[in-house]
């Protein structure tokens, strides 16, 4: 490693970006590409549009087969001509399938799916960056994208072709196909995942026989993600597809779907990388609740159970989700969860992280939530009151203090009688606490004074026991045996030599014990 100047270091440590740049990028060998004994070249075939209609079918098949030849894009110098031929051919195929009718005859299906499988189904290489942080780092893009993109495009047009027959296609687009497709969702390349999302969505729509299987597999992927690996790049895309599926659920909801909500979607909230897919996840949850409002209570209780305790960013997300849920909640359902929910909100409001507090306080800017609170003010106000009052005095952030004023004012206007009652009982509580504190302070003061006043008397005590116990060695022996102390204590009390000390002794000896 060459010397790194001081400016490139932070706190004496080399910046991460410098370290990365220094790492030599090894060319990734892939078992996908057979080492050719002889260089393989593609010979360009005539254009489809130029071919007579009788030969088009055959030419189409030839081109499809030609495109089954794979090229190594990590090597940027070899096979350039052939790569270009393949790219142009793929482009042509995409056009052909999109614009022409009568292209999808039965014998074409296996050729098409074979070409697709050959090109896209591959084992994804391990991530170049083992600490890949999806939010910060640039993703590793697929090197062969110039071809693969076209293959995806082709697959999509194939599925969306008006002549497409699921009854024929299902022989080739089967469970194995779907499984391999799902595995590709782990690609780091967002463009690839975007295609996959649309493709799987179409497949789910058209192949009724595969629907249950797809749902099951997605389940498994999520469960593995939550409980085992915490790694999967395609969660957001899968959730987006699920959103459109949930939206289409028939009522009453099947038990399977409800189980999915409680066993998969809710625990998904515990993932560390929640920020990447929270919007989609929240959408799915809200869709469920719009379909079946009776699910509100278990959902909210589930969220409260998994409420983030140390990650403020997640807490803000959870609060956003709660607001979305409250936007669609039915008043009868609200009553069931209002108490545990507002207990949590009351904690959020006092959170020293200003974003969490702000987000929680902002609930009071939501008209519908206000109307719900108003209906149930007698239950909610007592829960919120103490924390709101406390942070109005104690929070460090002035914006928060101003928001608290708004909230208190709003609550006050809802029910001033209750508010006044709570104010006076809160004040009374504070008075009591203050009084207790004062008494405690005075007790300590007294004890301190005790110690000081007997300091000279303790000089001859060699055992160094705490002075509270040694307050009676004013004349004699240094063995501060406990029994001796008691006897001396008695002696002093009887003596009446030093009235102050005596009084102190008789008071504090019980304490010493």
């Amino acid at each position: 490693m060459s010397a790194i100047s001081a400016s490139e270091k932070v706190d004496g440590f080399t910046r991460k970006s410098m370290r990365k740049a220094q790492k030599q990028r090894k060319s990734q060998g892939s078992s996908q590409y057979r080492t050719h004994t002889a260089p393989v070249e593609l010979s360009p075939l005539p254009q489809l549009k130029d071919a007579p209609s009788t030969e088009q079918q055959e030419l189409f098949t030839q081109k499809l087969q030609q495109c089954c030849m794979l090229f190594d894009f990590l090597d940027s110098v070899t096979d350039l001509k052939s790569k270009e031929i393949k790219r142009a051919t793929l482009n042509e195929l995409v056009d052909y399938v999109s614009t022409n009718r009568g292209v999808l005859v039965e014998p074409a299906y296996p050729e098409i799916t074979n070409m697709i499988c050959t090109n896209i189904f591959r084992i994804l290489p391990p991530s170049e960056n083992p600490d890949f942080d999806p939010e910060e780092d640039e993703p590793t893009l697929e090197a062969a994208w110039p071809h693969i993109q076209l293959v995806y495009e082709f697959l999509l047009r194939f599925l969306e072709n008006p002549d497409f027959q699921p009854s024929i296609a299902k022989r080739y687009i089967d469970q194995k196909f779907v499984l391999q497709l799902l595995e590709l969702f782990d690609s780091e390349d967002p463009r690839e995942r975007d295609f996959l999302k649309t493709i799987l969505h179409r497949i789910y729509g058209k192949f009724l026989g595969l629907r249950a299987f797809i749902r099951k597999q997605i389940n498994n992927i999520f469960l593995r993600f939550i409980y085992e690996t915490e790694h999967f790049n395609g969660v957001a895309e899968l959730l987006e597809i699920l959103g459109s599926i949930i939206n289409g659920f028939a009522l009453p909801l099947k038990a399977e779907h409800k189980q999915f909500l409680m066993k998969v979607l809710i625990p998904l909230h515990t993932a560390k990388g929640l920020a990447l897919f929270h919007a989609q996840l929240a959408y799915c949850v809200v869709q469920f609740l719009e379909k079946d409002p009776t699910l509100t209570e278990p959902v909210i209780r589930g969220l409260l159970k998994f409420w983030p305790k140390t990650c403020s960013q997640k807490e803000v997300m959870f609060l956003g989700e709660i607001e979305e849920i409250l936007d669609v909640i039915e008043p009868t359902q609200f009553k069931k969860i209002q108490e545990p929910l507002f207990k949590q909100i009351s904690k959020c409001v006092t959170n020293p992280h200003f974003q969490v507090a702000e987000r929680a306080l902002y609930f009071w800017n939501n008209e519908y939530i206000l109307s719900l609170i108003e209906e149930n003010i007698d239950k909610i106000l007592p829960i919120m009151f103490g924390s709101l009052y406390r942070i109005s005095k104690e929070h460090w952030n002035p914006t928060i203090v101003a928001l608290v004023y708004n909230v208190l004012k709003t609550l006050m206007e809802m029910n001033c009688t209750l508010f006044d009652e709570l104010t006076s009982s809160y004040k009374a509580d504070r008075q009591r606490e203050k009084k207790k504190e004062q008494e405690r302070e005075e007790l300590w003061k007294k004890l301190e004074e005790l110690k000081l006043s007997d300091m000279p008397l303790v000089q001859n005590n060699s055992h160094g026991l705490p002075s509270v116990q040694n307050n009676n060695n004013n004349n004699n022996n240094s063995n501060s045996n406990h029994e001796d102390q008691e006897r001396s204590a008695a002696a002093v009390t009887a003596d009446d030599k030093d009235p102050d000390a005596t009084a102190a002794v008789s008071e504090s000896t019980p304490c010493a014990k």
Partner: protein
Amino acid sequence: MDAFKLMKELRVNCEQEVHYLPKVTGLRAIESTAPGDSRISAKCRDAKVEDLWSLTSFFGYSTQTFVLAVNLLDRFLAMMKIQPKHLSCISLSCLHMAAKVTEKECNLTPTDELIRIGQCRFTVSDLARMEKIVTEKLNFKSKAVTALTFLHLYHQIALSHCTDRKTTLSLEKLEAQLKACLCRISFSKAKPSVLALALLRQEIEAVQSEDMLEIASHIQRHLKIVDADLVLWSKCVAQCLSDYASPECSKPDHRKLQWIVSRRTAQSLHSYRSVPELPTIPEGCWDESESEDSCEDMMSSGEESLSSSLGSDAEGSFFPPHLRRQNQRQYLYA
């Protein structure tokens, strides 16, 4: 304080109270002004007084401060023609003046904080100037004798005279009721001694103490309060308090409040309302071919049992027993 002293103090305060009454003609002018006029209306003033109460409560000021502030405000409004746009500056300066009189210096909220929380648009120097103006106009009579003064005295007298140990009058409750009354401008027309007595009486009637009723009458005679007056104001008080105690909530006047949040929070607020791009896929009817094909395409190594359980997902356990065993996960990677 013994009874005699208390009564004497009552008399003294009663004599003083006239000096601190707002001009009745001024108050009537306000009451008759329609809202939306170029002058202050009763509704305007009442809303402002409610704001004052919110601020008092928020900053932990005492009821004394609030009552005094309202007194200063009413006296000022009754003597000057005020434009509504100046009302918040005036009310805030009255509050600040009252706080300076009543509260400990260490508990005084600085004026910039007052303005910020009150969401007002004027500056600290504006406030200082307004304070000067108000002080001058009121002839520097800041320490007013108010209904609260009387309420405290009455309360002390009632308690000291009452032989029945069991019944107590809650001073806090009385204060809260006074506060509710003061939020309506009509009560500013009452003499503080009468208003306080009316409040005392209705509370005594609520706790049904004959003893205290006697004491109340005694006070009335002592201060020479006319029966008619007392009856009139008792009626008004009763009306006001029944509104105050009603469980009906008033819809908060939402548009008045500003909700300022930090930039980061504002950014994340509406990021969720994105419309999904994928069109909805309606769920087919369950008996349909939804289950038909799942049995056909079998995969090797133990896939059969998986597929067959997918058909009738509506019944049956979602997590088939063989899957619950830990070592059955190889099936996915056939």
